[in-house]
């Protein structure tokens, strides 16, 4: 693996869309869950008695973690140059190619 490939591979990992979604949703999840944990009665009453911030926060946290886990379990490989004839056989998830 030469320098160029290594750089591309690093860029591909950094830039995996699953990491972007996972990252944003984990941050959203943590913030909204915290807010939900301390919601006063006004907020709860407005939402018809549902602790919506808490639940939505936890749900977003779970979604975010799922995406990060997915990426961790089947990491992106560096995209190959266009003329590759498909020898990236081990790409089980079939979802990892990222540019």
């Amino acid at each position, binding site marked *: 693996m030469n320098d160029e490939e290594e750089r*591309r591979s690093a*860029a*591909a990992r*950094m*830039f995996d*869309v699953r990491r*972007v*979604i996972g*990252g*944003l*949703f984990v*941050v*959203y999840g943590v*913030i*909204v869950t915290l*807010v*939900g944990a301390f*919601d006063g009665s*006004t*907020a*709860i009453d*407005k*939402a*018809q*008695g*549902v602790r*919506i*911030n808490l639940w*939505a*926060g936890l*749900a*977003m946290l779970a*979604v975010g973690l799922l995406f990060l886990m997915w990426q961790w379990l089947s990491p992106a490989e560096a*995209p190959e140059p*266009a003329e590759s*004839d*498909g020898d*990236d*056989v*081990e*790409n*089980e*998830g*079939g*979802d*990892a*190619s*990222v*540019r």
Partner: protein
Amino acid sequence: MDGGLRLDLNWLDYLLLTLYFVTVLGVGFAARRAIRTSVDFFLSGRSLPAWVTGLAFVSANLGALEIIGMAANGAQYGIMTTHYYWIGAVPAMVFLGIVMMPFYYGSKVRSVPEYLRLRFNRPTHLLNALSFAVAQVLIAGVNLYALALVLDALLGWPLWISIIVGAAIVLTYISIGGLTSAIYNEVLQFFVILAGLIPITVIGLVKVGGFDGLFDKVRNSDLGEAGLHAWANTGSSDNPLGAHWLGIVFGLGFVLSFGYWTTNFAEVQRALSARNMSAARRTPLIAAYPKLLIPLVTIIPGMIAVVTVQGLGADEGDLVYNNAIPLLMRDLLPNGVLGIAVTGLMASFMAGMAANVSGFNTVFTYDIWQTYVKRERDDDYYIKVGRLATVGGIVVGIGTAFIAAGFSNIMNYIQALFSVFNAPLFATFIVGMFWKRMTAAAGFWSLLSGTVVALATYLLYLGGALPFDTDLEESFWGAGLAFVTVLVAAFVTSRFTAPKPESELRGLVRGLGGIDLKGDVVAGDAAWYRSPLLLGGVALALSLLFYIPVW
């Protein structure tokens, strides 16, 4: 009732909104590092997996106009609105994936107009490239204007600030990161939009007592029992939508929907960026599944709004149907999820606009500039042109935002645009793809006459010469007439001109071979659950099944 719609956002909601924009711009800058060639910029290097292009495909259509408009229709027409999804989208998406995508992806064209150049001739190509470019800029303007209206109502931001900020953000991430950036952001937007809409639906359902409570309340509202059925009473036009089943099946389900989903490059482009034939075919099929379920978070909130918001359905002011979703946000969401919902709404405006702009810059660069103005420059030159086209498209889009301001119902303006541009295009495609004797000249004259007929129908209706009851009825008829015109023109012209030799049509027309469906498969594509026929068949079956409880 001044400020009636104003949401009470606090610092927390603005923090969530800011985080989103930082992420979006970050994606743009990160994508820049991956751009080496113009194919990287315009088609993401044809490297994306099917789930990414599939979600981008549905997201490109999930603009805020769609969300707000469908919630409004849900409030106004009830369950009949599901026709826009189950018959008005899914069959066309399945058709695109199974039947048409092999021609698009297999011929290695870079855009929809380019297919027309190969199948017919350069005049057909130029005509379509120009009309597509114009339509995209007009629609981008509509998105921008609608964004500004909503931000003005919800947050009290002045119109011009919203227009400039919205345009600047889309401009930045597309001109820097190209299609990859647009697609990644669309996938992200898809999830953020859902994260905003689901809490509205859940709390709304809690408020009205679940689905049973909702249906009971709708029964007792002005909408009545009719608002709970999709097909009942469509033997006449005595139903909320005022549509006969023939009109629903052929007008909406066939001409309008197939025209939009199968030939609109802003959609097809997402599939062309997939990494191989299998992924390209699965793109619209994967998109069909979320599309089947989206009514749950658009139409249902609309119906909740009509039974919980007193006086919804006014002709003007804050209580127009279009405000169904914003009103529910105001009434039901506490700070926190409120910030997510506002972010989702803004995200969806940008999704819509970004789809139009990235379609526009590709067609402008490849199909207009590279083909007719400056040929055979190096690739870097065309990336630069693409970036400049993005800037130009957005600036013109800002201008066209004010054309949109002249229409009372923005959704109808869009439908009118589609009936003028997409219906004749689809008809030309469908004949050209299936009938090898259709000649090059026939391609041009069919497309031109179809567009002229659709445009004339529309202008005559505007001028009062054609007495259609509603804008919607006009777009059904305009589309239908254009379709018939194309068929006639194609047949007549082909009789008097010579067809292209079959050797030139291989891979472009059905029945001549030349398409390799399996040549570029990667491991895993052969898995049974990735079969396009199976995915498409299940999607169609589900859309039928979903109709049963709301027959």
